[in-house]
């Protein structure tokens, strides 16, 4: 699963640690999500969406392209 977390974070000039604190997870978890190594749960994805005031689909999208 790909995501725009790093871009959204950079747009707001936040560090990984700041985003981690906002989402109440560790900085390592934010790093892993940004790199696509860890897929967040639905509650965490919703939390991120609320934080950025976007929908989940605006942040996370499936790597399999639909035709």
């Amino acid at each position, binding site marked *: 699963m790909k995501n725009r977390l790093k871009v959204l974070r950079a747009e707001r000039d*936040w560090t990984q*640690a*700041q985003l*981690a*604190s*906002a989402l*109440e*997870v*560790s900085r*390592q*978890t934010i*790093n*892993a999500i940004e790199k696509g*190594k*860890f897929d*967040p*749960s639905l509650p*965490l994805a919703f939390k991120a969406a609320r934080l950025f005031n976007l929908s989940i689909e605006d942040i996370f999208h499936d790597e399999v392209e639909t035709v």
Partner: protein
Amino acid sequence: MSKQEHDKNNYQIKNSANTVKLRNWTIAWVVTMAIAAFAPKFIWDFNTSLTIIALVVNLGIGFRMLIANRAYLRGLDEMQQKILLEAMALALGIGLVVGLSYELLEDIKLITFQPEIAHLVILMGITYLIAVISGHRKYQ
């Protein structure tokens, strides 16, 4: 980001507090285990009442340590929980498979010494440690 910094403090404080509690209960458990193991011989000359009390205290503190461990695990975020869950599953699996085979070695006369439960605990501890480290590396 004052709200977020507030959350950060709450999150970090919660995890730090859980870690400290777990550390303290673990130390207490190890100390009471040492007392239960050595004091009957070296301090109270196998007085049955004192030995039973020492065992009960050790068991009680052991259960309290388990509760602290549960609180610690619940306080972690989902990725950390996943890493520890996988490590615990591996340690349990290795402990079961290798432990039973190890115990069998003496029965089938492949080793001459009595298998010790401590060896199994060490194996599971090392397995858990390696699994936790490799789990963190996997998600770096």
